[in-house]
């Protein structure tokens, strides 16, 4: 037990240490990448009606005349104290904008994930269990559609159908869950469907493949031979083992969910990370781009960390640190 705890502590510390190193590398990459973009912040902010004096003042105000190393050091040392700078475009603190946008994207991603798990796993199991039957063809067809249809188009179609023709849901906007839960869901269901449809399709296909594999394995055959009920065989034996693959896929796809939210948020006018990022990139709002990318990277790294920990929970054969 003590050995397991030591192993766990060492594993967790090693993974957290690696995550921190990754974050530092990400911050350097983002910092340099943003500055390597063609187009000048000062000019993007001043617009076409500009003058050298205005450009010089903007450069001075945001420290753009200092060398890159000085700018980077100033940025990380401020960020370490929670100061991510001021948006050059809006004049508002970056952290305020991020803390306003983050919960929206996280809620959207969580709902999309929930939808993807419920629909994807359910359809995947159904397709595997009912192999060769119409249910499998239907599930495969829907999965193919889910992967092929562009989010932008699906969003517009859903708005036309369920916000205009049959106004069950709202076409756009965000209301915090704490303010009005019903209104919140009314506004978040359609975006979650759009964002989650692609992931649901991937999950469905992975679940189906893993379940087919599991259903043909020796332990399932043994379970059946022991006379266990089909529901128990599928749920407790085949599905549980198949979930390792599904969790891996979900972990890999979660990052895509956050980046995929960019399009969904545009369609449904959700003031999340996606909109914030696009506006920041187009105006070369360095502080905002850096803040957004750092937070997104942190979320991505955290998710991967959680997925790694989840492996050991869903499959007892996997031991910490790769030891048997």
């Amino acid at each position, binding site marked *: 037990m003590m050995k397991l705890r030591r192993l766990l502590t060492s594993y967790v510390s090693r993974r957290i240490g690696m995550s921190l190193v990754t974050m530092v590398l990400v911050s350097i990459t983002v910092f340099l990448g943003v500055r390597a*973009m063609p187009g000048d912040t000062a000019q993007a902010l001043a617009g076409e009606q500009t003058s050298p004096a205005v450009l010089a003042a903007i450069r001075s105000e945001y420290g753009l005349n200092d060398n890159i190393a000085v700018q980077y050091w100033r940025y990380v040392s401020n960020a370490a104290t929670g100061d991510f700078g001021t948006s050059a475009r809006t004049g508002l603190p970056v952290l305020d904008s991020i803390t*306003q946008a983050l919960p929206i994207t996280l809620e959207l991603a969580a709902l999309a994930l929930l939808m993807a798990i419920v629909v994807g796993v359910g359809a995947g199991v159904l397709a595997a269990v009912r192999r060769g039957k119409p249910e499998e063809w239907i599930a495969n067809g829907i999965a193919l559609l889910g992967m092929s249809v562009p989010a932008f188009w699906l969003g517009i179609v859903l708005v036309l159908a369920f916000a205009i023709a049959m106004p069950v849901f709202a*076409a*756009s906007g965000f209301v915090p869950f704490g303010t009005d839960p019903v209104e919140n869901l009314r506004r978040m269901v359609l975006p979650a469907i759009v964002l989650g449809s692609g992931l649901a399709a991937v999950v469905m296909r992975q679940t189906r493949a893993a379940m087919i594999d599991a259903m043909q394995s020796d332990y399932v055959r043994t379970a059946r031979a022991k006379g266990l009920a089909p529901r128990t065989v599928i749920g407790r034996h085949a599905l549980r083992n198949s979930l390792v693959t599904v969790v891996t896929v979900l972990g890999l796809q979660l990052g895509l969910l956050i980046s995929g939210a960019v399009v969904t948020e545009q369609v449904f*006018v959700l003031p999340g990370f996606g*909109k914030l990022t696009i506006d920041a990139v187009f105006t070369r709002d360095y502080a905002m781009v850096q803040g957004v990318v750092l937070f997104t990277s942190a979320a991505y790294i955290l998710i991967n960390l959680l997925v790694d920990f989840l492996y050991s929970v869903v499959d007892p054969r996997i031991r910490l640190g790769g030891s048997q």
Partner: protein
Amino acid sequence: MRRIPATLAVAALLAATTACSTLSPPGEATAAKARLTDLRPVRDGGTVTIGLKSDPDMLDPSLTSTLVARTVFTSMCEQLYDVDQHNHFVPQLAASLPKITNGGRTFTFTVRKDARFSDGARLDAAAVKTSLDRHLHLRGSGRASEIDSVDKVAAIGPYTVQLSLKHPDVPLLGRLANTAGLIMSPKALRQYGSKFATHPSCVGPFKYVKRVVGDRIELAKDPLYYDADKVHLDRVIYKTITDGNIRMANIRSGDVQIGDQMGPVEVRNSMGEKGIQLLNTPSLGYMGVTLNVGNVHGIDQKPGTVDTPFGRDVRVRQAFELSLDRELINKLVFQGMYEPACGPVPPGIPLSSPVSCPGRDVAKAKKLLEQAGVKTPVPLELMINTTPEDSRLGQVIQAMAADAGFDVRLRPTEFATGLTRTLAGDFQARTGGWGGQPDPAGNIDSLVGTAGSNNQGKLSDPEIDRLIVAGRSTSDVAKRRAVYRDLTAAINKQHAVIYLYRPINYVSASDDVSGIKLSGDGLIRVKEAGYVKGSR
């Protein structure tokens, strides 16, 4: 077999791929008859949400550089002067039009005595001086270059302001009817300084409540406003919805009541639709192609010689212009919903004169190229924005110019990159436009004057420069009109800025909202708007 001209082939292709509805002949389809307001009586109360095409930048009149921020300011920050629906200057926070004396060197005006800022501070001459001084001297102020003719601002009485100018500058009135005329609360300026944008406070029908970046700006009725009796709405929300189709979908669903800057395609698709009304006003600006004729070392340097056929010979530029058909461009690219244009002075303002656009003349264009002795096809790289409309525009120009002997290569470039390249002189030609100002000097001086801060192609012509000075120096309307007529002819003679079309500002709105007003500047005013009596 006779070859189908490339232009017609592209025209047919574009017509088939860009429009769902039938195209009408040019002119007939243009919703050119202005509809600036709707006067149905309204009730008090309610919230109106306005969908904006882009997110405003800083809500600071000195630092903003976007037109969309001015749209928001129309509700919360009044200006010294405004333009009415006939493009005449009218006092807003000023109590009268300025008395221009000393050969255009002194502007004297009084300000309203009944106005208070949303934070309770009183409007007086000192407050106006504080704002104008800030516009002039704040680091990074975008207004400084607009009113740099102002030498000194003085409060010569409790409510009387006098501006002493370095040189005659009659068009200054037009700039005071724009962002440079926005007045901020001195109390808020003292408290927040350069962070005014976080707590903007002005005189206006609505006051600032909060902003969620990328999403919305919320305003509430200001009880301190001097004209509060005319304000019906409780709240106004400006919401950023960049895609025109989605803006329209939100109007249809009732989530948004007013859609700003609607595109021709969305407008055409919604024309006659139940529950949606359309307001429109011709723009004061223009769109066209700027050719680089002298921007060699950057926009802030002296003009040089651009060593291309376009830079060397005006006949090549003229031939390029003659290859273009403005009517067909309007029809193919904008569904006939805009207006062809061939000059910087918009029609419908007191200083404009009628201008007839030259028609397309491919034979003459070819002859000019022959006279210029250039080898055809003449290459030209045309920088375009990364929007579907600009892409279509570029393709049509490419096809039309090819008929006359030009090889136009399109270079789609995202805004910030394009701007950097343009200012550095790293371009041959670019599509673009100008939002427009009610005084024609605002559309000309900085754009084609040799010393102009926004003279992207670095056109330099002594006659143009002479006429620019003449236009600034007299306040006599007839004389100025004549100057701008001559100036338009002088600019067009150089064929360095090819004016192609004038956008129409389209605003789509829910039918149950009335009292929306558009002015000549195309900005939406909701001061007197509200829900129609008897509606929801």
